[in-house]
């Protein structure tokens, strides 16, 4: 302050303070300090280079663990459609309520409010909200209304909605056994949902989302654009309407018969498509996880039963195909009793005379069937049964399918062979039986039952078609004949399946009534399985239908009383739906009339019947005449044949059953609408 000796500074000062001294201004020390600071800055600069360039990768790997959350977003499960692309099962995106217990305060209050909205117990919610962790499902798949109410809560920002996909079966119980169901995690648990699980489920997407330390997702604009992936769509061969028809009919039948179980299968000839498959009792697939396993079980595939008489057309077809039974020959029914070894076979409707093959089926003669079985022998019969698809899975694609019980022929006893010929000692699944009868409807071609039609990938491209080539089992000729025999079962006044009659449609079928074996024991008990199988129209089959009524409690337990009415209903309604049958009665000779004529003669009726007038008058175009002379069985099945020609060639074969000459009603109405209002009787004789 006071005057001090000025240090060796060149600068002059006129302040009252001391001038800069040597130690400071010109000294090296400040330079050292500057250098020291520079070095420190350089060290930190190198450090930042180290962090940001050299060690960046290893540090970033740590970042990913804390900065991102990986969400496994399940693809939206594919839709299941019926053959007309009506959805049977679809997935909708719904909200699930999630809470972060760490964020929620005043848990008790929150639990009470939430409980009121979500209809849950406050205690449970409180427990969830006080749990340790940052994620807890409060309620999965809540309704829109619930979500709305929750959003209005004061603490709604502590809650979060996760979009989840929910499986919805819009048709309720319809086709429940075919569709199956999904569990709470959206995984297919039964039937088609399980069988096609990987396809329907699709690829789940692992989404990387940024998160904050509390685990909350941080959505960026591009995150919202991310479309949810979709699984592939599955198209079933089912027709929703026919399925509905079958369900209704079966429902009524079950009510009437108070049966334990009922199965109905509707199959399309010439393709093997399952149009409907009903198992009663059914369930609501929307609540699949609550359903008992016994009810979930698809009896149509997994419960083999002894078919009983419904087997006889198969036996007959097999024998005729081998040429062991001639259409003209007769087989004596041994007056209703036949001794084989120590066992006796009985007929329910003994005629005590030789029966034509048609009559064997019509009267359902066990004895004649057994005799036919003997003619074939074990090996050949077994082979034929195999060809009809018995003893092996139909590969319909649903889980839990049984192959039935068809033991190898060298283990068959003589009585066993006889039994199998009329449907005992062999167990078949309903689907096998339907497919076998469908072979007759399909002109002797065996089509594997098909439930899955195609798969459509999320882009809308058909990626897979389920098609299998049919295999020839019996000749077309034999198939026609068996068809006529089955027609007589329904059409003839003394046929066993009269109650299956469908007005206006030529339907062929066969009843079956099998005794149920005592479970776990030997022999048969009192319970029966009534069944009815057949197809319609006979000349141009559109559907093959099987109805099985298991353990009916009604007084009449025969297939003719239990299954046949339901069968008739299904056929009538389905054909109406398909446009074949308009529900009006036939305008020409009723079946009963024809059959009376045929049976009165006890021989082949066709010979005795007068030629139709129109056919007699008309000149035959030679080509058609020749062909139909050679292959008379083709006539009734020629779908696209002009009706005039059909009529001309109709009676060129003497083996043809007279009934066949009637064209189906549908065809008639299509081709000759002007004749509609003519008197029925007159027209029919016109035709004849």
């Amino acid at each position, binding site marked *: 302050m006071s005057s001090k000796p000025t240090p060796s500074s060149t600068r002059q000062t*006129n302040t009252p303070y001391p001038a800069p001294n040597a130690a400071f201004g010109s000294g090296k*020390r400040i330079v050292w300090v500057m250098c020291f600071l520079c070095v420190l*800055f350089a060290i930190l600069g190198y450090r930042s280079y180290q*962090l940001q360039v050299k060690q960046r990768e290893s540090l970033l790997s740590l970042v990913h663990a804390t900065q991102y959350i990986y969400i496994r977003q399940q693809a939206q499960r594919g839709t299941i459609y019926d053959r007309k692309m009506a959805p049977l099962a679809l997935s909708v995106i719904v909200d699930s309520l999630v809470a972060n217990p760490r964020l929620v305060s005043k848990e008790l209050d929150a639990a009470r409010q939430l409980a009121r909205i979500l209809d849950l117990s406050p205690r449970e919610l409180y427990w969830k909200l006080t749990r340790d962790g940052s994620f807890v499902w409060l309620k999965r798949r809540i309704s829109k209304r619930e979500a709305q109410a929750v959003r209005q809560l004061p603490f709604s920002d502590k809650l979060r909605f996760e979009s989840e996909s929910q499986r919805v079966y819009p048709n309720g119980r319809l086709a429940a056994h075919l569709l199956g169901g999904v569990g709470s995690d959206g995984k297919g648990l039964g039937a088609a949902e399980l069988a096609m699980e990987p396809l329907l489920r699709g690829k789940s997407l692992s989404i990387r989302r940024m998160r904050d330390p509390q685990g909350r997702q941080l959505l960026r604009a591009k995150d919202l654009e991310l479309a949810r992936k979709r699984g592939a769509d599955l198209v079933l061969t089912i027709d929703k309407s026919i399925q509905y028809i079958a369900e209704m009919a079966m429902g009524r039948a079950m009510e009437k018969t108070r049966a334990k179980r009922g199965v109905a299968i509707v199959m399309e000839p010439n393709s093997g498509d399952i149009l409907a498959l009903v198992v009663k009792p059914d369930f609501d697939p929307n609540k699949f996880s609550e359903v008992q396993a016994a009810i979930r079980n698809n009896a149509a595939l997994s419960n083999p039963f002894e078919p009983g008489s419904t087997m006889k057309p198969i036996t007959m077809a097999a024998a005729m195909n081998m040429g062991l039974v001639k259409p003209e020959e007769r087989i004596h029914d041994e007056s209703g009793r036949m001794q084989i070894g120590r066992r006796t076979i009985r007929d329910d409707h003994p005629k005590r005379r030789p029966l034509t093959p048609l009559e064997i089926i019509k009267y359902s003669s066990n004895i004649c069937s057994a005799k036919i079985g003997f003619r074939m022998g074990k090996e050949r019969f077994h082979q034929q049964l195999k060809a009809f698809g018995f003893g092996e899975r139909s590969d319909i694609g649903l889980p839990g399918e049984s192959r039935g019980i068809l033991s190898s022929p060298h283990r068959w006893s003589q009585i066993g062979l006889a039994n199998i010929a009329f449907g005992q000692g062999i167990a078949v699944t309903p689907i096998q039986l339907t497919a076998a009868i469908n072979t007759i409807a399909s002109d002797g071609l065996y089509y594997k039952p098909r439930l899955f039609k195609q798969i459509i990938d999320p882009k809308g491209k058909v990626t897979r078609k389920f098609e299998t080539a049919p295999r020839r089992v019996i000749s077309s000729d034999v198939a026609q004949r068996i068809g006529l025999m089955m027609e007589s079962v329904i059409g003839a006044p003394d046929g066993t399946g009269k109650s299956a009659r469908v007005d206006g449609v030529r339907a062929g079928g066969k009843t079956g009534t099998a005794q149920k074996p005592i479970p776990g024991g030997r022999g048969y008990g009192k319970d029966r399985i009534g069944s009815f199988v057949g197809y319609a129209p006979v000349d141009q089959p559109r559907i093959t239908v099987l109805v099985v009524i298991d353990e009916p409690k009604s007084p009449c337990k025969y297939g003719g009383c239990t299954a046949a009415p339901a069968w008739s209903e299904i056929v009538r309604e389905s054909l109406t739906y398909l446009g074949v049958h308009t529900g009006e009665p036939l305008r020409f000779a009723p079946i009963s009339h024809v059959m009376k004529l045929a049976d009165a003669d006890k021989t082949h009726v066709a010979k005795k019947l007068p030629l139709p007038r129109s056919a007699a008058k008309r000149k035959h175009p030679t080509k058609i005449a020749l062909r139909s002379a050679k292959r008379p069985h083709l006539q009734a099945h020629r779908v696209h044949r002009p009706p005039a020609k059909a009529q001309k060639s109709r009676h060129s074969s003497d083996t043809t059953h007279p009934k066949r000459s009637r064209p189906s009603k549908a065809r008639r109405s299509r081709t000759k609408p002007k004749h509609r209002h003519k008197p029925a009787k007159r027209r029919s004789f016109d035709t004849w």
Partner: protein
Amino acid sequence: MQKKRWFGTLWSDPWLMLVSIVLAMVGVSMIYSTTHVGAMEKFNSPYLYLRQHLVSLALGLVGLMFFSQLPMKTLRRFAPWMLLAVFGLLVLVLVPGFGARVGGAIRWLKIAGIRVGQPAELAKLALVIFVAYSLERKHDRVDQLFVGFLPNVVVAGLMVGLLMVQPDFGTSMLLLTVLMIMMFVGGVPKRILVGSALMALPMIYLMLTRKAYRWKRITSFLDPFAPENIQAGAYQLVQSLKTIAMGGLWGMGIGQSRQKLGHLPEAHTDFIFAIVGEELGLIGVFLVMLAFLFFVYRGFRIAMRARDLFSQYVALGLACTVGLQCLLNVGVVMGSLPTKGMPLPFLSFARSSLIVVLCCVGILQRIEADTLASEYRAKRKREENTADRESAARQSTGEHRNISAGARPVQSAS
């Protein structure tokens, strides 16, 4: 004339002013970038922190102007009183009812329930000014242990003691380092400095080990990625390292930081430099660090040019304070130093610190203005001398009037 001078004082070192403005602007943008999400979430107002920061920036500018106008003579006169006042404040913070506890430390002075500031920030300024005052007064006896060294150490020790009660380890270290540097430059013999440093080591060790959390910080600093440390003390450090690494060479882009979304605690205050690293990358880090280095350089230049010892020491002390605070903060953020609470000057959302740093800039500008003025005077004097000599020489010729009259306006214009 008066107005012009005022403005000139503010810009006496334009480079210092420029780098200060740049750093402050970087700070403003980084604070907005870092806080708007959190502020939106917590207070439903994205500009909350930004607004507060801008208010303190404005206050700081007022302080800058004030100190740039305050003559160094006055500052020197009030140096002991300022020190006393700061001591008072430091004590007041510890008085229940006046100190606000934030994050385990009582650093905020609270008056009538409102947090007004951190006296520790003022302590830096006050101590630097006091030490400068002390060194200048005893400039010829600094090599004497009991004159040049001990009084300063005792004052600083008292202050550090008060700070450690808060506790504020970071500021204590900073103050001691600045003190050492000032005494080193001031000419205190090396043996005294080294000896005292050796004596201080056990003390520091004791301070570190006495508090468990502090020791944990040290251990976790040594190996931040050890699992037990990640869980415990090193979480912030690990997050900070990750944050910096995220930036890479070029950075994520301004506003693109992800770690600021809650991952990095104190992202907007002590760890804002990590966000700088993330958003601006290595380039940004280098530029910001160079800016600080440049600030220090300008400070040292001012110190070396200053015309009196007090100004020199003050300039040196303030430049060192800012520089070391930056180094300490960046060192912590980059995991080169143990974690401690220390805001980054200009950039951090630390309002007291920002105001004090701007005041420091004001003081530095004042010192430079004094230097410039004295240089100008000296120049004029020189010229007058030469002019006098010339006139004396010309007097013989009898022409001097004209020449000097013509020369003056030119000189004053330059």
